[in-house]
């Protein structure tokens, strides 16, 4: 089974946003990056499917040169090789542009199964998977919690809202977006890191100019929904004041 995993490099969870002068994007020079967490679950699921059905796992990413960091990490965790569509303009691109950049080189590979995370922790469009599936002309399903593959088809467990689930089947090739928590992640071993250095990363340029379908006209901290009373002091002082306010002001105790 030939499996692709699309991964994205995103700012770490600890990152504190700082904006560019024009307040339309983030200051990229301040950022440390990591693999988008839902994509890490997609990678893990692909590695497990390869262990069961044999074949290969190819990690695919669209982005500037810096995304090599997460590609190397995916290779160290066990992916066999990588496809990197490289262009500086892909750094802040939307899902439409990323899918457009990856579609042609991925189509050439004729994957049986394409996995990716259900959404990215940066722009969070949750659009990339279904758009890429449409461009590849293959069926898709999203927010997947279980993957059962056999020759020619796949049966998946899809998460619905409020604790409901549904199984569905579709023919291969297919694309699935993976929900966090579908499996337990493995981390790279030293042996894996060493082996990754010898693995192939195929770099290609996008076939056409990177063009997003949405333009950010302003970027700013979220507006407060409420006036938050911040309670200062030591732990004991803050606790005392909070309990007083919950009793006397909010009357919830």
């Amino acid at each position, binding site marked *: 089974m030939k499996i692709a995993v699309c991964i994205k490099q995103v700012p770490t969870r600890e990152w504190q946003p700082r904006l560019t002068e024009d307040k339309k994007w983030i200051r990229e020079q301040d950022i440390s990056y990591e693999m988008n967490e839902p994509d890490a679950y997609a990678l893990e699921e692909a590695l497990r499917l390869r262990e069961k059905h044999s074949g290969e796992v190819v990690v695919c990413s669209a982005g500037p040169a810096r995304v090599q960091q997460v590609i190397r990490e995916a290779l160290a965790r066990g992916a066999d090789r990588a496809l990197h569509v490289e262009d500086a303009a892909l750094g802040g691109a939307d899902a439409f542009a990323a899918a457009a950049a990856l579609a042609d080189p991925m189509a050439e590979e004729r994957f049986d199964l394409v996995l990716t995370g259900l959404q990215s922790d940066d722009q969070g469009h949750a659009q990339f998977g279904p758009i890429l*599936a449409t461009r590849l002309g293959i069926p898709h399903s999203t927010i997947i919690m279980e993957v059962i593959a056999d020759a020619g088809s796949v049966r998946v467990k899809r*998460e619905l809202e409020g604790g409901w689930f549904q199984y569905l089947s579709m023919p291969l090739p297919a694309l699935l977006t993976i929900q966090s928590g579908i499996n337990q992640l493995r981390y790279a071993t030293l042996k894996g890191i060493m082996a990754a250095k010898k693995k192939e990363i195929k770099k290609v340029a996008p076939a056409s100019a990177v063009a997003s379908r949405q333009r950010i006209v302003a970027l700013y901290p979220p507006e407060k929904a409420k006036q938050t009373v911040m309670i200062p002091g030591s732990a004991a002082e803050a606790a005392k004041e909070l309990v007083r306010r919950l009793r006397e002001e909010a009357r919830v105790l």
Partner: protein
Amino acid sequence: MILVVAEQREGKLNRASWEAVAAGQQLLREANIAVLKIVVLGRAVSALANELAAASSAGVIAVENQSLGTYTPDAFVQALRQIVTTESPQFVVFPHTYQTRDFVPALAAAMDRAVVTDAIAIRNVNGAPAFARPMFQGKLTADVVPEGPTPHLVTFQIGAFRADAVARGASPAPITAAEATIDASAVRQKPEEPFQEVRQAVDLSQAERIVAVGRGIKSQDNLPLAEALAKALGAELAASRPICDNGWLPMERQIGSSGQTVAPKLYVALGISGAIQHLVGMKGARTIVAINKDAEAPIFEVADYGIQGDLFEIAPAIAAELQKG
């Protein structure tokens, strides 16, 4: 024209559909567009169309087809592509649900049009509408403008607009039936019946007080600290998704879009950053307390009371304070 796509499950409209109608009505004013229509799709939707006709609109379009009985992305893309092409709207508005997340980007890709997802507000930028949406896990909000030829597709976050803000018409809007031809052999997904994993043993929606833990708790070994605070408050223990993903607490204790939605009198968020998937499940709580080491955490946006600091010191201090009586 604006076309609002209502969502139904098993013959019932969900609340998010009314919120999408309210969003569509506001967009009508902001974008200075004259006509709004609502479309509803399914196997048999006449009762739903009647219900939707109460909203102020130029009409409700009922699309009935056997292949739309059980949801699949392929059938919905086929049907809506035809309706949107015929109606030729400037905007197509949806609620942002697990169902629209599944097919709306595919519909946009099939039509080669822009789609903005998870919008929380409509802005006016130089006379044209822009859509505010959260980015970077809610740390920032972006105003975005969809580009390229219309129609532009927009999904609105649950709770961003109020269902009771829907303008009602003086008389019911006219209902028309529209045909959609669906090639059933081109519907590749074969769905089975939806089910619930376990009967929910804990109904958190009925809890008066909830203490919820997030990544900040760091390890399963630290859970007793949260349990002690919950006990002192007479509260149920709950968690954000990563805690349940790690298996530290059962999935049935998860609050958020994939878990339970709650509206207790008191909600204490311990070490929860406040990603939007969590906020949608708890922002209806009457009083929200957030305890977090990061003063910039989005949870403070919705909190009534906030303490910035080390939850490993603060949670036991609150429990001790409560025990003083």
